[in-house]
Protein backbone atom coordinates (compact mmCIF):
# COMPACT_ATOMS: atom_id res chain seq x y z
CA UNK A 1 0.00 0.00 0.00
CA UNK A 2 2.66 2.43 1.01
CA UNK A 3 4.62 2.10 -2.17
CA UNK A 4 1.65 3.04 -4.32
CA UNK A 5 1.36 6.48 -2.84
CA UNK A 6 4.60 8.01 -4.11
CA UNK A 7 4.14 6.31 -7.46
CA UNK A 8 0.62 7.62 -7.70
CA UNK A 9 1.72 11.10 -6.78
CA UNK A 10 4.45 11.00 -9.36
CA UNK A 11 2.01 9.96 -12.05
CA UNK A 12 -0.33 12.72 -10.99
CA UNK A 13 2.47 15.24 -11.14
CA UNK A 14 3.44 14.10 -14.62
CA UNK A 15 -0.14 14.20 -15.81
CA UNK A 16 -0.67 17.68 -14.50
CA UNK A 17 2.58 18.84 -16.02
CA UNK A 18 1.59 17.55 -19.42
CA UNK A 19 -2.00 18.78 -19.16
CA UNK A 20 -1.38 22.18 -20.79
CA UNK A 21 -0.22 20.49 -23.98
CA UNK A 22 -3.64 19.03 -24.53
CA UNK A 23 -5.85 21.63 -22.94
CA UNK A 24 -7.28 24.89 -24.15
CA UNK A 25 -6.25 28.20 -22.67
CA UNK A 26 -9.48 28.16 -20.72
CA UNK A 27 -8.72 24.72 -19.34
CA UNK A 28 -5.33 25.85 -18.17
CA UNK A 29 -6.82 28.83 -16.37
CA UNK A 30 -9.37 26.65 -14.66
CA UNK A 31 -6.70 24.30 -13.35
CA UNK A 32 -4.59 27.26 -12.38
CA UNK A 33 -7.40 28.50 -10.18
CA UNK A 34 -7.86 25.06 -8.70
CA UNK A 35 -4.20 25.04 -7.70
CA UNK A 36 -4.70 28.44 -6.13
CA UNK A 37 -7.61 27.22 -4.04
CA UNK A 38 -5.70 24.14 -2.97
CA UNK A 39 -2.84 26.33 -1.82
CA UNK A 40 -5.25 28.60 0.07
CA UNK A 41 -7.25 25.86 1.75
CA UNK A 42 -4.08 23.98 2.66
CA UNK A 43 -2.51 27.10 4.12
CA UNK A 44 -5.54 27.86 6.24
CA UNK A 45 -5.35 24.28 7.43
CA UNK A 46 -1.82 24.91 8.68
CA UNK A 47 -2.92 27.43 11.25
CA UNK A 48 -6.52 26.60 11.94
CA UNK A 49 -6.60 22.88 11.31
CA UNK A 50 -3.49 22.18 13.34
CA UNK A 51 -3.62 24.70 16.17
CA UNK A 52 -7.35 25.23 16.28
CA UNK A 53 -6.98 29.00 16.09
CA UNK A 54 -9.58 30.11 13.58
CA UNK A 55 -8.12 32.59 11.13
CA UNK A 56 -11.27 34.26 10.00
CA UNK A 57 -9.55 36.83 7.84
CA UNK A 58 -6.98 34.67 6.14
CA UNK A 59 -7.54 36.26 2.76
CA UNK A 60 -5.72 39.28 4.16
CA UNK A 61 -2.45 37.49 3.39
CA UNK A 62 -3.63 36.86 -0.15
CA UNK A 63 -4.49 40.50 -0.66
CA UNK A 64 -1.32 41.71 0.98
CA UNK A 65 0.73 39.41 -1.21
CA UNK A 66 -1.15 40.59 -4.27
CA UNK A 67 -0.46 44.23 -3.55
CA UNK A 68 3.09 43.70 -2.36
CA UNK A 69 4.12 41.74 -5.40
CA UNK A 70 2.24 44.00 -7.81
CA UNK A 71 3.92 47.03 -6.34
CA UNK A 72 7.27 45.29 -6.63
CA UNK A 73 6.56 44.71 -10.32
CA UNK A 74 5.21 48.15 -11.06
CA UNK A 75 7.39 50.34 -8.88
CA UNK A 76 10.55 48.31 -8.53
CA UNK A 77 10.53 46.59 -11.86
CA UNK A 78 11.10 43.14 -10.42
CA UNK A 79 10.37 40.13 -12.62
CA UNK A 80 7.14 38.56 -11.52
CA UNK A 81 8.50 35.30 -10.08
CA UNK A 82 10.67 37.24 -7.65
CA UNK A 83 7.89 39.69 -6.96
CA UNK A 84 5.52 36.87 -6.06
CA UNK A 85 8.04 35.44 -3.65
CA UNK A 86 8.16 38.93 -2.22
CA UNK A 87 4.42 38.67 -1.81
CA UNK A 88 4.95 35.57 0.26
CA UNK A 89 7.48 37.38 2.42
CA UNK A 90 5.06 40.27 2.85
CA UNK A 91 2.40 37.83 4.01
CA UNK A 92 4.74 36.26 6.53
CA UNK A 93 5.80 39.66 7.86
CA UNK A 94 2.21 40.74 8.28
CA UNK A 95 1.52 37.48 10.10
CA UNK A 96 4.41 38.19 12.44
CA UNK A 97 3.33 41.74 13.17
CA UNK A 98 -0.31 40.96 13.73
CA UNK A 99 0.18 37.54 15.22
CA UNK A 100 2.41 38.66 18.04
CA UNK A 101 -0.35 40.65 19.76
CA UNK A 102 -3.38 38.79 18.48
CA UNK A 103 -2.40 35.18 19.06
CA UNK A 104 -2.61 35.84 22.77
CA UNK A 105 -6.33 36.22 22.37
CA UNK A 106 -8.65 33.36 22.94
CA UNK A 107 -10.87 31.67 20.35
CA UNK A 108 -13.69 33.99 19.37
CA UNK A 109 -11.58 37.08 20.02
CA UNK A 110 -8.82 35.93 17.73
CA UNK A 111 -11.38 35.22 15.01
CA UNK A 112 -12.78 38.72 15.35
CA UNK A 113 -9.33 40.24 15.36
CA UNK A 114 -8.40 38.48 12.11
CA UNK A 115 -11.68 39.55 10.54
CA UNK A 116 -10.94 43.09 11.58
CA UNK A 117 -7.42 42.88 10.19
CA UNK A 118 -8.81 41.99 6.82
CA UNK A 119 -11.14 44.98 6.79
CA UNK A 120 -8.40 47.27 7.97
CA UNK A 121 -5.91 46.19 5.31
CA UNK A 122 -8.55 46.78 2.68
CA UNK A 123 -9.13 50.25 4.04
CA UNK A 124 -5.42 51.03 4.29
CA UNK A 125 -4.78 49.91 0.76
CA UNK A 126 -7.67 52.04 -0.49
CA UNK A 127 -6.38 54.99 1.47
CA UNK A 128 -2.86 55.16 0.10
CA UNK A 129 -4.12 55.96 -3.34
CA UNK A 130 -0.89 57.46 -4.45
CA UNK A 131 0.86 54.19 -3.98
CA UNK A 132 -1.75 51.61 -4.70
CA UNK A 133 -4.16 53.39 -6.97
CA UNK A 134 -6.77 53.17 -4.24
CA UNK A 135 -10.24 52.33 -5.40
CA UNK A 136 -9.19 52.68 -9.00
CA UNK A 137 -7.04 49.67 -8.70
CA UNK A 138 -3.58 48.84 -9.87
CA UNK A 139 -2.74 47.70 -13.36
CA UNK A 140 0.21 45.53 -14.24
CA UNK A 141 2.07 45.68 -17.53
CA UNK A 142 0.40 43.38 -20.02
CA UNK A 143 1.84 39.94 -20.12
CA UNK A 144 0.40 36.61 -21.03
CA UNK A 145 2.07 34.23 -18.67
CA UNK A 146 -0.82 31.87 -18.04
CA UNK A 147 1.28 28.83 -18.74
CA UNK A 148 4.11 29.80 -16.46
CA UNK A 149 1.66 30.82 -13.76
CA UNK A 150 -0.08 27.49 -14.12
CA UNK A 151 3.14 25.72 -13.21
CA UNK A 152 3.95 28.24 -10.50
CA UNK A 153 0.56 27.81 -8.84
CA UNK A 154 0.92 24.09 -9.12
CA UNK A 155 4.29 24.27 -7.43
CA UNK A 156 2.90 26.34 -4.58
CA UNK A 157 -0.04 23.99 -4.08
CA UNK A 158 2.29 21.02 -4.06
CA UNK A 159 4.73 22.88 -1.85
CA UNK A 160 2.20 23.78 0.80
CA UNK A 161 0.91 20.20 0.80
CA UNK A 162 4.43 18.90 1.18
CA UNK A 163 5.10 21.31 4.03
CA UNK A 164 1.90 20.15 5.71
CA UNK A 165 3.09 16.57 5.44
CA UNK A 166 6.47 17.47 6.87
CA UNK A 167 4.88 19.30 9.77
CA UNK A 168 2.34 16.63 10.56
CA UNK A 169 5.07 14.02 10.85
CA UNK A 170 7.35 16.11 13.01
CA UNK A 171 7.52 17.05 16.64
CA UNK A 172 6.82 20.64 15.63
CA UNK A 173 3.50 19.47 14.28
CA UNK A 174 2.77 17.49 17.42
CA UNK A 175 3.34 20.60 19.48
CA UNK A 176 1.03 22.60 17.25
CA UNK A 177 -1.62 19.99 17.81
CA UNK A 178 -1.23 20.12 21.58
CA UNK A 179 -2.23 23.76 21.32
CA UNK A 180 -5.43 22.60 19.69
CA UNK A 181 -5.98 19.80 22.17
CA UNK A 182 -5.28 21.61 25.42
CA UNK A 183 -3.40 24.85 25.38
CA UNK A 184 -3.12 25.15 29.15
CA UNK A 185 -1.58 21.72 29.47
CA UNK A 186 0.74 22.46 26.58
CA UNK A 187 2.06 25.56 28.33
CA UNK A 188 2.41 23.65 31.56
CA UNK A 189 4.48 21.05 29.71
CA UNK A 190 7.00 23.62 28.62
CA UNK A 191 5.70 24.47 25.16
CA UNK A 192 5.97 28.17 24.36
CA UNK A 193 2.56 28.28 22.75
CA UNK A 194 2.80 31.86 21.57
CA UNK A 195 5.97 31.16 19.65
CA UNK A 196 4.58 28.03 18.02
CA UNK A 197 1.35 29.73 17.08
CA UNK A 198 3.36 32.52 15.55
CA UNK A 199 5.43 30.11 13.47
CA UNK A 200 2.28 28.40 12.30
CA UNK A 201 0.61 31.66 11.37
CA UNK A 202 3.65 32.86 9.48
CA UNK A 203 3.94 29.59 7.59
CA UNK A 204 0.27 29.74 6.78
CA UNK A 205 0.65 33.23 5.37
CA UNK A 206 3.41 32.48 2.85
CA UNK A 207 1.25 30.36 0.55
CA UNK A 208 -1.54 32.91 0.23
CA UNK A 209 1.03 35.67 -0.15
CA UNK A 210 2.71 34.03 -3.13
CA UNK A 211 -0.55 32.88 -4.63
CA UNK A 212 -1.96 36.39 -4.25
CA UNK A 213 0.94 37.71 -6.24
CA UNK A 214 0.51 35.07 -8.92
CA UNK A 215 -3.18 35.70 -9.17
CA UNK A 216 -2.63 39.41 -9.49
CA UNK A 217 -0.07 38.84 -12.21
CA UNK A 218 -2.46 36.55 -14.02
CA UNK A 219 -5.37 38.98 -13.88
CA UNK A 220 -3.17 41.93 -14.71
CA UNK A 221 -5.24 44.18 -12.47
CA UNK A 222 -6.21 44.29 -8.82
CA UNK A 223 -8.37 46.46 -6.64
CA UNK A 224 -9.02 46.36 -2.91
CA UNK A 225 -12.42 44.72 -3.12
CA UNK A 226 -11.23 41.90 -5.29
CA UNK A 227 -8.35 40.80 -3.12
CA UNK A 228 -9.69 41.22 0.39
CA UNK A 229 -13.16 39.70 0.17
CA UNK A 230 -14.50 37.84 3.17
CA UNK A 231 -16.09 35.33 0.84
CA UNK A 232 -12.66 34.09 -0.17
CA UNK A 233 -11.76 33.39 3.44
CA UNK A 234 -15.02 31.55 3.89
CA UNK A 235 -14.49 29.58 0.71
CA UNK A 236 -11.05 28.36 1.69
CA UNK A 237 -12.35 27.47 5.13
CA UNK A 238 -15.30 25.52 3.79
CA UNK A 239 -13.02 23.70 1.35
CA UNK A 240 -10.68 22.67 4.14
CA UNK A 241 -13.58 21.68 6.37
CA UNK A 242 -15.35 19.72 3.69
CA UNK A 243 -12.31 17.63 2.91
CA UNK A 244 -11.22 17.37 6.50
CA UNK A 245 -9.26 19.94 8.45
CA UNK A 246 -6.20 18.79 10.27
CA UNK A 247 -5.47 16.20 7.59
CA UNK A 248 -3.05 16.48 4.69
CA UNK A 249 -5.26 15.59 1.75
CA UNK A 250 -8.48 16.97 3.20
CA UNK A 251 -8.00 20.50 1.88
CA UNK A 252 -6.93 19.15 -1.50
CA UNK A 253 -10.02 16.99 -1.71
CA UNK A 254 -12.31 19.72 -0.46
CA UNK A 255 -10.86 22.30 -2.80
CA UNK A 256 -11.16 20.03 -5.80
CA UNK A 257 -14.71 18.93 -5.16
CA UNK A 258 -16.06 22.32 -4.22
CA UNK A 259 -14.17 24.15 -6.94
CA UNK A 260 -15.54 22.01 -9.74
CA UNK A 261 -18.95 22.08 -8.15
CA UNK A 262 -18.82 25.86 -8.14
CA UNK A 263 -17.65 25.97 -11.75
CA UNK A 264 -20.55 23.79 -12.79
CA UNK A 265 -23.14 25.68 -10.77
CA UNK A 266 -21.87 29.14 -11.65
CA UNK A 267 -22.33 28.41 -15.28
CA UNK A 268 -25.90 27.30 -14.89
CA UNK A 269 -27.44 29.09 -11.96
CA UNK A 270 -25.78 32.45 -11.93
CA UNK A 271 -28.35 34.07 -9.68
CA UNK A 272 -28.74 31.24 -7.27
CA UNK A 273 -25.06 30.59 -7.08
CA UNK A 274 -24.42 32.56 -3.92
CA UNK A 275 -27.55 31.23 -2.28
CA UNK A 276 -26.48 27.68 -3.02
CA UNK A 277 -23.07 28.40 -1.63
CA UNK A 278 -24.66 29.66 1.56
CA UNK A 279 -26.64 26.44 1.76
CA UNK A 280 -23.48 24.40 1.25
CA UNK A 281 -21.76 26.24 4.05
CA UNK A 282 -24.63 25.54 6.41
CA UNK A 283 -24.73 21.90 5.31
CA UNK A 284 -21.02 21.36 5.85
CA UNK A 285 -21.09 22.96 9.28
CA UNK A 286 -24.10 21.03 10.48
CA UNK A 287 -23.67 17.70 8.79
CA UNK A 288 -19.98 17.11 8.39
CA UNK A 289 -17.84 19.31 10.58
CA UNK A 290 -15.03 16.76 10.54
CA UNK A 291 -15.00 16.60 6.79
CA UNK A 292 -14.84 13.57 4.57
CA UNK A 293 -11.36 12.47 5.52
CA UNK A 294 -11.98 13.28 9.14
CA UNK A 295 -14.92 10.94 9.25
CA UNK A 296 -13.04 8.23 7.38
CA UNK A 297 -10.09 8.65 9.66
CA UNK A 298 -12.21 8.03 12.69
CA UNK A 299 -14.19 5.19 11.21
CA UNK A 300 -11.33 3.19 9.77
CA UNK A 301 -8.65 4.26 12.18
CA UNK A 302 -6.58 5.76 9.39
CA UNK A 303 -3.19 7.25 10.15
CA UNK A 304 -2.78 10.91 10.79
CA UNK A 305 -0.91 11.42 7.53
CA UNK A 306 -3.99 10.90 5.44
Amino acid at each position, binding site marked *: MKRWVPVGLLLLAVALSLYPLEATGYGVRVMLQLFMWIALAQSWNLISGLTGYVSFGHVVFFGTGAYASSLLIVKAGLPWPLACLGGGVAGALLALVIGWPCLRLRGPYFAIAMLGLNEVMRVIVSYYEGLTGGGNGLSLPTLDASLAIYYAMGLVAAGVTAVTYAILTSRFG*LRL*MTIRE*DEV*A*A*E*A*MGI*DTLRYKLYALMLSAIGPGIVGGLSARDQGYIEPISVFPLIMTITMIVMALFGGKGTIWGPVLGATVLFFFQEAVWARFVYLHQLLFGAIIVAVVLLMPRGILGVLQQKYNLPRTI
Partner: protein
Amino acid sequence: MAPILEVDGAVKRFGGVAAVNGVSLALEPGRIYGLIGPNGSGKTTLFNCITGVDHLDEGRIRFKGVPIDRLKPHRIFHLGVGRTFQVIRVFPELTALENLLVVTTTGYAEARARARELLARVKLDRLADQFAGNLSYGQQKLVEFVRVLMTDPELILLDEPAAGVNRTLLNELLDAVRRLRDQGKTVLLVEHDMKVVMGLCETVFVLDHGEKLAEGAPGVIQADERVIEAYFGR
Protein backbone atom coordinates in the same frame (compact mmCIF):
# COMPACT_ATOMS: atom_id res chain seq x y z
CA MET B 1 19.84 23.35 53.13
CA ALA B 2 18.18 26.11 51.15
CA PRO B 3 14.52 25.56 50.45
CA ILE B 4 13.72 24.56 46.92
CA LEU B 5 10.42 26.42 46.88
CA GLU B 6 9.41 29.44 48.92
CA VAL B 7 5.96 30.95 48.90
CA ASP B 8 5.87 34.31 50.65
CA GLY B 9 2.60 36.00 51.58
CA ALA B 10 0.80 34.80 48.47
CA VAL B 11 -2.51 36.49 47.76
CA LYS B 12 -4.76 35.73 44.82
CA ARG B 13 -8.17 37.29 44.43
CA PHE B 14 -11.00 36.46 42.09
CA GLY B 15 -13.47 39.29 42.02
CA GLY B 16 -13.95 40.16 45.66
CA VAL B 17 -12.93 36.78 47.03
CA ALA B 18 -9.40 35.99 48.13
CA ALA B 19 -8.89 32.39 47.10
CA VAL B 20 -5.41 32.49 48.53
CA ASN B 21 -5.00 34.94 51.38
CA GLY B 22 -1.47 35.41 52.63
CA VAL B 23 -0.07 31.90 52.41
CA SER B 24 3.59 31.30 53.19
CA LEU B 25 5.39 28.00 53.04
CA ALA B 26 8.80 26.57 52.28
CA LEU B 27 9.75 23.21 50.84
CA GLU B 28 13.06 21.52 51.60
CA PRO B 29 14.50 19.49 48.74
CA GLY B 30 14.17 15.72 48.72
CA ARG B 31 10.96 15.43 50.73
CA ILE B 32 7.33 14.64 50.08
CA TYR B 33 4.85 17.30 51.12
CA GLY B 34 1.09 17.22 51.27
CA LEU B 35 -1.34 20.09 50.81
CA ILE B 36 -4.76 19.43 52.25
CA GLY B 37 -7.85 21.39 53.13
CA PRO B 38 -11.58 21.40 52.57
CA ASN B 39 -12.98 22.17 49.15
CA GLY B 40 -12.48 25.75 48.14
CA SER B 41 -9.58 26.28 50.51
CA GLY B 42 -7.33 27.49 47.72
CA LYS B 43 -5.17 24.44 47.04
CA THR B 44 -5.51 24.31 43.28
CA THR B 45 -5.31 28.08 43.05
CA LEU B 46 -2.02 27.95 44.88
CA PHE B 47 -0.82 25.26 42.52
CA ASN B 48 -1.85 27.39 39.58
CA CYS B 49 0.05 30.35 40.95
CA ILE B 50 3.18 28.34 41.56
CA THR B 51 3.12 26.97 38.01
CA GLY B 52 2.30 30.28 36.36
CA VAL B 53 -1.19 29.42 35.15
CA ASP B 54 -2.43 32.22 37.38
CA HIS B 55 -0.56 35.22 38.69
CA LEU B 56 -0.42 36.38 42.28
CA ASP B 57 -1.94 39.67 43.26
CA GLU B 58 0.50 39.99 46.15
CA GLY B 59 3.45 38.06 47.47
CA ARG B 60 6.37 36.23 45.94
CA ILE B 61 7.21 32.72 44.92
CA ARG B 62 10.80 31.64 44.60
CA PHE B 63 12.11 28.44 43.08
CA LYS B 64 15.71 27.72 44.04
CA GLY B 65 15.93 31.38 44.95
CA VAL B 66 14.67 32.58 41.56
CA PRO B 67 11.40 34.54 41.60
CA ILE B 68 8.93 32.74 39.37
CA ASP B 69 5.64 34.45 40.15
CA ARG B 70 5.74 36.61 37.02
CA LEU B 71 6.91 33.95 34.59
CA LYS B 72 4.89 32.13 31.95
CA PRO B 73 4.12 28.48 32.62
CA HIS B 74 6.48 27.11 30.01
CA ARG B 75 9.42 29.02 31.46
CA ILE B 76 8.66 27.73 34.94
CA PHE B 77 8.46 24.23 33.55
CA HIS B 78 11.89 24.51 32.00
CA LEU B 79 13.31 25.78 35.27
CA GLY B 80 12.44 22.42 36.76
CA VAL B 81 8.86 22.47 38.03
CA GLY B 82 6.44 19.87 36.69
CA ARG B 83 2.78 19.35 37.48
CA THR B 84 -0.19 17.17 36.87
CA PHE B 85 -3.77 18.35 36.83
CA GLN B 86 -6.84 17.67 38.91
CA VAL B 87 -8.81 16.85 35.77
CA ILE B 88 -6.60 14.75 33.54
CA ARG B 89 -5.12 16.77 30.72
CA VAL B 90 -3.50 14.37 28.35
CA PHE B 91 -3.63 15.26 24.69
CA PRO B 92 -6.36 12.93 23.50
CA GLU B 93 -5.56 12.87 19.79
CA LEU B 94 -1.90 12.21 20.35
CA THR B 95 -0.65 8.75 21.18
CA ALA B 96 0.69 7.99 24.62
CA LEU B 97 4.20 8.11 23.23
CA GLU B 98 3.58 11.40 21.47
CA ASN B 99 2.17 12.86 24.65
CA LEU B 100 5.57 12.38 26.16
CA LEU B 101 7.53 13.28 23.05
CA VAL B 102 6.20 16.80 22.78
CA VAL B 103 7.61 17.68 26.15
CA THR B 104 11.37 17.55 25.78
CA THR B 105 13.72 19.69 23.82
CA THR B 106 16.37 17.05 23.40
CA GLY B 107 16.87 15.26 20.09
CA TYR B 108 14.06 13.20 18.67
CA ALA B 109 15.78 9.84 19.08
CA GLU B 110 16.84 10.55 22.63
CA ALA B 111 13.37 11.75 23.55
CA ARG B 112 11.78 8.66 22.01
CA ALA B 113 14.02 6.38 23.98
CA ARG B 114 13.31 8.12 27.23
CA ALA B 115 9.58 8.18 26.53
CA ARG B 116 9.52 4.46 25.89
CA GLU B 117 11.53 3.85 29.02
CA LEU B 118 9.16 5.89 31.16
CA LEU B 119 6.12 4.18 29.70
CA ALA B 120 7.73 0.82 30.36
CA ARG B 121 8.29 1.81 33.97
CA VAL B 122 4.55 2.11 34.46
CA LYS B 123 3.88 -0.90 32.24
CA LEU B 124 2.26 1.09 29.45
CA ASP B 125 4.81 0.39 26.75
CA ARG B 126 2.50 -1.84 24.75
CA LEU B 127 -0.02 1.01 24.61
CA ALA B 128 2.54 3.54 23.46
CA ASP B 129 0.95 3.96 20.03
CA GLN B 130 -2.64 4.17 21.20
CA PHE B 131 -4.37 7.53 21.12
CA ALA B 132 -4.34 8.81 24.68
CA GLY B 133 -8.00 9.60 24.42
CA ASN B 134 -8.75 5.91 23.98
CA LEU B 135 -6.96 4.81 27.12
CA SER B 136 -8.75 4.09 30.37
CA TYR B 137 -8.90 6.67 33.11
CA GLY B 138 -6.20 4.99 35.13
CA GLN B 139 -3.94 4.61 32.11
CA GLN B 140 -4.38 8.28 31.23
CA LYS B 141 -3.46 9.18 34.76
CA LEU B 142 -0.25 7.21 34.46
CA VAL B 143 0.56 8.83 31.13
CA GLU B 144 0.08 12.26 32.65
CA PHE B 145 2.27 11.24 35.55
CA VAL B 146 5.23 10.04 33.50
CA ARG B 147 4.82 12.90 31.05
CA VAL B 148 5.84 15.22 33.83
CA LEU B 149 8.99 13.18 34.38
CA MET B 150 10.26 13.53 30.82
CA THR B 151 12.48 16.48 31.62
CA ASP B 152 13.49 15.21 35.04
CA PRO B 153 12.06 18.13 37.02
CA GLU B 154 13.31 18.77 40.53
CA LEU B 155 9.98 19.82 41.94
CA ILE B 156 6.88 17.89 41.07
CA LEU B 157 3.39 19.09 41.90
CA LEU B 158 0.68 16.43 41.83
CA ASP B 159 -2.92 17.58 41.87
CA GLU B 160 -5.06 14.84 43.40
CA PRO B 161 -3.08 11.89 42.06
CA ALA B 162 -5.28 9.39 43.85
CA ALA B 163 -8.60 10.63 42.50
CA GLY B 164 -10.59 7.94 40.76
CA VAL B 165 -7.77 5.44 40.84
CA ASN B 166 -8.06 1.81 41.94
CA ARG B 167 -6.02 0.35 44.77
CA THR B 168 -3.39 -1.43 42.70
CA LEU B 169 -2.69 1.52 40.48
CA LEU B 170 -2.63 3.78 43.47
CA ASN B 171 0.04 1.72 45.13
CA GLU B 172 2.12 1.82 41.98
CA LEU B 173 1.80 5.58 41.87
CA LEU B 174 2.75 5.93 45.52
CA ASP B 175 5.77 3.71 45.04
CA ALA B 176 6.78 5.82 42.07
CA VAL B 177 6.51 8.95 44.20
CA ARG B 178 8.68 7.43 46.91
CA ARG B 179 11.27 6.45 44.33
CA LEU B 180 11.29 10.05 43.08
CA ARG B 181 11.93 11.25 46.58
CA ASP B 182 14.74 8.76 46.96
CA GLN B 183 16.31 10.21 43.84
CA GLY B 184 16.35 13.60 45.52
CA LYS B 185 13.23 15.07 43.94
CA THR B 186 10.77 17.16 45.89
CA VAL B 187 7.10 16.32 45.64
CA LEU B 188 4.12 18.42 46.70
CA LEU B 189 0.75 16.85 46.37
CA VAL B 190 -2.79 18.02 46.83
CA GLU B 191 -4.95 15.22 48.09
CA HIS B 192 -8.30 14.52 49.64
CA ASP B 193 -7.59 10.90 50.44
CA MET B 194 -6.31 11.11 54.02
CA LYS B 195 -4.85 7.62 54.02
CA VAL B 196 -2.65 8.54 51.08
CA VAL B 197 -1.53 11.76 52.67
CA MET B 198 -0.80 10.24 56.03
CA GLY B 199 1.00 7.27 54.54
CA LEU B 200 3.09 9.14 52.03
CA CYS B 201 3.83 12.70 53.13
CA GLU B 202 6.52 13.74 55.53
CA THR B 203 5.11 17.18 56.14
CA VAL B 204 1.55 18.35 55.62
CA PHE B 205 0.22 21.89 55.09
CA VAL B 206 -3.41 22.57 55.84
CA LEU B 207 -5.25 25.33 54.01
CA ASP B 208 -8.61 26.70 54.98
CA HIS B 209 -10.38 29.61 53.30
CA GLY B 210 -7.18 30.57 51.57
CA GLU B 211 -5.03 30.69 54.70
CA LYS B 212 -2.50 28.28 56.11
CA LEU B 213 -4.08 26.75 59.14
CA ALA B 214 -1.42 24.33 60.26
CA GLU B 215 1.81 22.70 59.22
CA GLY B 216 3.59 19.64 60.50
CA ALA B 217 3.99 15.87 60.47
CA PRO B 218 0.89 13.89 59.50
CA GLY B 219 0.28 12.54 63.01
CA VAL B 220 0.37 15.98 64.52
CA ILE B 221 -1.95 17.43 61.91
CA GLN B 222 -4.46 14.66 62.33
CA ALA B 223 -4.80 15.45 65.99
CA ASP B 224 -4.91 19.21 65.54
CA GLU B 225 -8.28 20.52 66.67
CA ARG B 226 -8.32 23.40 64.26
CA VAL B 227 -7.86 21.04 61.36
CA ILE B 228 -10.65 18.80 62.54
CA GLU B 229 -12.87 21.82 62.92
CA ALA B 230 -12.06 23.08 59.45
CA TYR B 231 -13.05 19.80 57.88
CA PHE B 232 -15.99 18.85 60.02
CA GLY B 233 -17.17 22.07 61.58
CA ARG B 234 -17.76 22.58 65.21
